[in-house]
């Protein structure tokens, strides 16, 4: 299982194994990571699973849907070029070592 690295706003790092095909959001909430709320359960409805991806690794991710793009305009922490919704990122083998920065706030 690929290892995903979560970096909290205070710099604390946590590393999790997330099964291929599972979303980064699912993997994080199922293992109790703080900082991802995911109130809609991965339905691309709430934007409370917002994360900042390490810019050099953005190309590893699936393309962004129009829906995700629209929701990212409504995140609680500012949208940046490397903003994504973690429920829309299904883990692939190539994502081993992916660095996911958690925002200050989700709501």
């Amino acid at each position, binding site marked *: 299982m690929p290892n995903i690295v979560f970096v909290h706003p205070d710099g604390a790092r946590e590393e999790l194994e997330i099964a291929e095909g599972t979303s980064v959001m699912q993997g994080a909430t*199922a293992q*109790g990571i703080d900082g991802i709320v995911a109130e809609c359960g991965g339905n691309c409805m709430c934007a409370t699973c917002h994360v900042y991806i390490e810019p050099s690794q953005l190309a590893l991710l699936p393309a962004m849907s129009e829906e995700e793009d*629209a929701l990212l305009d409504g995140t609680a922490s500012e949208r940046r070029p490397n903003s994504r919704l973690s429920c829309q990122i299904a883990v692939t083998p190539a994502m081993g070592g992916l660095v996911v920065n958690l925002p200050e706030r989700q*709501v």
Partner: protein
Amino acid sequence: MNRPGTVLVLGTGQAGFQVAASLREEKFDGRVVLVGDEPGLPYQRPPLSKAYLTGKADADAVRLRPDRFFAEHRLELRAGERAARIDRAGRRVVLASGEALPYDHLVLALGARNRALPVPGAELDGVVQLRTLGDAEGLRRRLETTREAVVVGAGFIGLEFAAVAAARGVAVTVVEAADRPMARSLSVAMSAFFRGAHERQGVRFVFGASVVRVLGGDGGGRATGVETADGRRFPGDLVLVGIGVVPNAELAADAGLAVADGIVVDERLETSDPAISAIGDCARHPCRFAAGAGPVRIESVQNAVDQARCVAARLAGRTAPYGAVPWFWSDQGASKLQIAGMAAPHDRAVVRGDPAGGAFSVFCFREGGLAGVESVNRPLDHVLARKLLANGADLAPEQAADPGFDLKARAGTPRAA
């Protein structure tokens, strides 16, 4: 207000879990005790009629958080315990086991239960409802051998189930008293779209019909179908009842709190006793987005979660009235319905987009103002609608219907005073 030492939460569903989690996010450092009558860890209900039913998600995937989360955040979870009585004078709740739990503040997050089908035969084997993980487990197993199903009630849950069953090759008949699906919630145009979408998947609708009897009983107490008031019979070895819910308000009523189809709360979500709040499916609250500003009882994840946050913030010392824009979704087959605001009732509805192509929104207006927006496969409209409603932006029906009109720009502009 003084910060209470112990917050006791009754109900461990979406709202109960969230108020506990949010209290810790708000840095509340007193005791948080959660009492719920369902076994196991808190879970989400929406997947029960969607991914869980199709087998795409398992019981672990619907859990809101793992064990570890509760321990790390010092949330004392008492699963499988039923609250029997609120002793307001003594500020304690008595459990069915007889144990009494003290509180400084009590949060009622008791949810709702499915309305039972009030006809003979409703107790037969094969007549089922869908509310809990236990219900969903049973239903998923039954679906493996079901060939024909009757759905009583063309509401959200009944139709989500119908879509899943039809996709498995089950012959589904939906019997509904109104003349169109989801009539209480949806505009005529959106309702018509979903009727067509289900019919194309093989679902048969029977409108204007009420079920008077569940047939069966000779074959070992098993349901074999339903009979309607006009004497027609529709076969089904499975009868799914989805005719609405009843709020779990008895505990509050017995304790002398104001109850009227739900536990009555004010704009701070306090009940008639300021030491007790009520949130989620069980609460009736004033809502500026509803006709006549409510009060309303809303059954949605958004409502449960946002109300939970509002109460948690108040208990942590940041009081603000509840005023979140309501939103909701329902997945029915390939179509994802999204609703922003309180579209029903409305006096004018205009379509934006292309209904024939399966991607459009219905903008619903009430007394000249935007009341709500229903979207199918138009996620951007939905997101903008939430902003339009939050900002109270002006929007004319003609503008909403004009594909060239820049909704995004308007959504960013609060209404001029």
